[in-house]
């Protein structure tokens, strides 16, 4: 723990008020005795667009999955708005990685988006008109209403990603976890996602987004988690996105990225 800089927002008391969307204490996750996340402590304030950045294998996806109870925790706890996930899961929306499903599945875009409402429908009950309507509205928000009845394999990669985002919108959550929504999408989808993120932020919602592209970090996110097995730094992007912190996160792997970071710093300097 003393190796990593202390998070500026480290909790002073273990109790978490219900206004904090996500509070993680002392989280450790291990696969086959090999820890993939160590002693994670995080507090995320409400209404932020939070980027999760780190090298491959840093445990970014695992962090999200641990928050959603999808992987077993070796220790620690995760609080969503002051309660465990099980209790407050209705407040959470999830966008998995696009590659995690088989897009050849015989469903339409609307069917997939309607899955976002399943959590509210209840067991053994059919998807009603009201839920389909909600799904349609979510599709409209990502500009895919015209594609509602297409089989999902007939959509482009970017459109598929937007279908997943629409499904999360249909969940009508307050805290969103998104696993690499920007991975391999065309520029127009990227723009659409950014607009959507700002939309959500203006509604006071919080989004945690696993991100790969360092060049767009300071443009897209106002809060940043630098992750490499442990939290290297977490805080407002302006304070956290520095050359030293990036080096501490990426280590030797940064060499190619150093210059990019340098450029960015200059750009930001100019911006001020």
């Amino acid at each position: 723990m003393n190796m990593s800089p202390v998070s500026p927002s480290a909790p002073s008391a273990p109790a978490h008020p219900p206004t904090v969307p996500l509070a993680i204490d002392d989280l450790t996750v291990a696969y086959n005795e090999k820890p993939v996340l160590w002693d994670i402590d995080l507090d995320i304030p409400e209404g932020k667009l939070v980027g999760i950045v780190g090298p491959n294998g840093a445990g970014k996806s695992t962090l999200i999955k641990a928050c959603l109870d999808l992987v077993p925790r070796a220790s620690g706890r995760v609080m969503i708005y002051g309660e465990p996930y099980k209790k407050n899961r209705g407040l959470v929306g999830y966008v998995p990685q696009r590659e995690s499903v088989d897009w050849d599945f015989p469903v339409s875009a609307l069917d997939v988006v309607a899955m976002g409402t399943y959590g509210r429908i209840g067991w053994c009950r059919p998807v009603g008109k009201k839920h389909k309507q909600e799904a349609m509205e979510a599709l409209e928000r990502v500009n895919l209403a015209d594609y509602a009845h297409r089989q999902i394999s007939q959509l482009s990669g970017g459109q598929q990603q937007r279908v997943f985002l629409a499904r999360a919108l249909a969940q009508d959550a307050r805290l969103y976890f998104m696993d690499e929504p920007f991975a391999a999408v065309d520029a127009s989808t990227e723009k659409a996602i950014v607009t959507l993120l700002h939309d959500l932020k203006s509604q006071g919602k919080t989004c945690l987004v696993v991100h790969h592209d360092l060049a767009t970090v300071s443009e897209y996110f106002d809060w940043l988690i630098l992750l490499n097995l442990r939290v290297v730094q977490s805080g407002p992007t302006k304070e956290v996105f520095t050359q030293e912190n990036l080096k501490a996160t990426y280590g030797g792997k940064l060499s190619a990225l150093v210059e990019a970071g340098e450029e960015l710093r200059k750009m930001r300097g100019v911006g001020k």
Partner: protein
Amino acid sequence: MSLFPAEISEVMEVLLLRNYNTRLVVISTLLLGVASGLVGSFLLLRKRSLMSDTLSHACLPGIGLMFILVTLGGGDGKSIPLLLTGASISGLLGVGMVTAIRNTTKIKDDAAMGIVLSVFFGLGVVFLSVAQTLGGSAAGLETFIYGKTASMVEQDYQLLLGVTVAAGVMCMLLQKEFTLMCFDEEFARSLAWPVHGLDLLLMGLVTAVTVVGMQAVGLILIIAFMIIPAAAARFWTERYRVMWILSGCIGGLSGWLGASVSAWLPRLPAGAVIVLVAGCAFLFSLFFGGARGVLKLGLRRHHMRRKVGRQHLLRGIYELLEDEKTFANTPVSIKQLYAKRSWTHTELHKLISRAKKEDHIEVVSGDRLQMSESGFAEAARYTRNHRLWELYLIRFADVAARHVDRDADRVEHVLGPELVRQLEAELDAVEEMSPVIESPHDLHSGVGI
């Protein structure tokens, strides 16, 4: 093949289920087909089709062991309910072992299933051999391997009816749960659904159908009933609900037809005939399936190739006219056309003769051809739309790649009228220097969409 009148009446007798025994068998296999079609479609979507293979083979030792235990205990070893109970227990044990191997070791699914399947089957054969030594009453146990439809009785029918209704109701009630589990298990778990429980329930349904179906078609061929109807249905639709219903129908139809044929030709074992009928349904769907059948896909590709060929030819001629700066529809020489694209002699002449049939061009003299009025209009449209695409790619290279549909006809449909107008203005500006023949069509009115 011509049928004698006597044979026709025999066939009618079977198909119309006049004979009580036949009726029982045919309706039973029909029900079995429906049940396995319904359950099997979820198995297919979950990519667990081979699990039914493992399961059915793993049932055998349960049958053998149950017989031995009951006989040694002094009971009736051939009591069907007891044997089926034994089969269910060992079947589920086999499935549980596959899951355990998958979850605790690095052995993959296919290997795990292969191991469990063969070991359980071997164990079953050993138990059956031991059972034979216990006395003559064990004769007939091996019918579970290949099935013996003709020996079905009222009790079997009732059992099948119960299982079919249960499977149908379960699948209907849990349709959205099963579908989400099959499509995106992780998302289902993020909703805090008990995915393991759902999985177990699905495997329970598969077990129930397998066990009751074993008597009818045998434990080896029941697999075909689970996999084939669902796989065949997939060729016809892109909607899981339709696929689900279709799969049940194909299964039921195969059971009905198969059992009927085997009742009509009693020397043919029903299980084999049923599977062959299902196989025919699969082959038919593979070729003629309306959504993704081979013919459908082939036809689509063929149309595409023709369309591209026509567009290339007309554009080639049009560009020749532009090169000559004649700005009118005049004859061009075929020889010059070769320079426009990498056509071989045969390819070009095939294109020309097809375009002639379509009234797009006419051959004026031996090596010169001229476009018809409609061909000229088409050519102008193709050329213009193609250039709009190219301009779009240049202007919007960063956004464009995924939006571009190389089919010239779709330019307005994809890009929208506003953008097309903007591109046209730019195109016109470029062409101030080298004017193009005016397009005879109003591009804004949506021609060719």
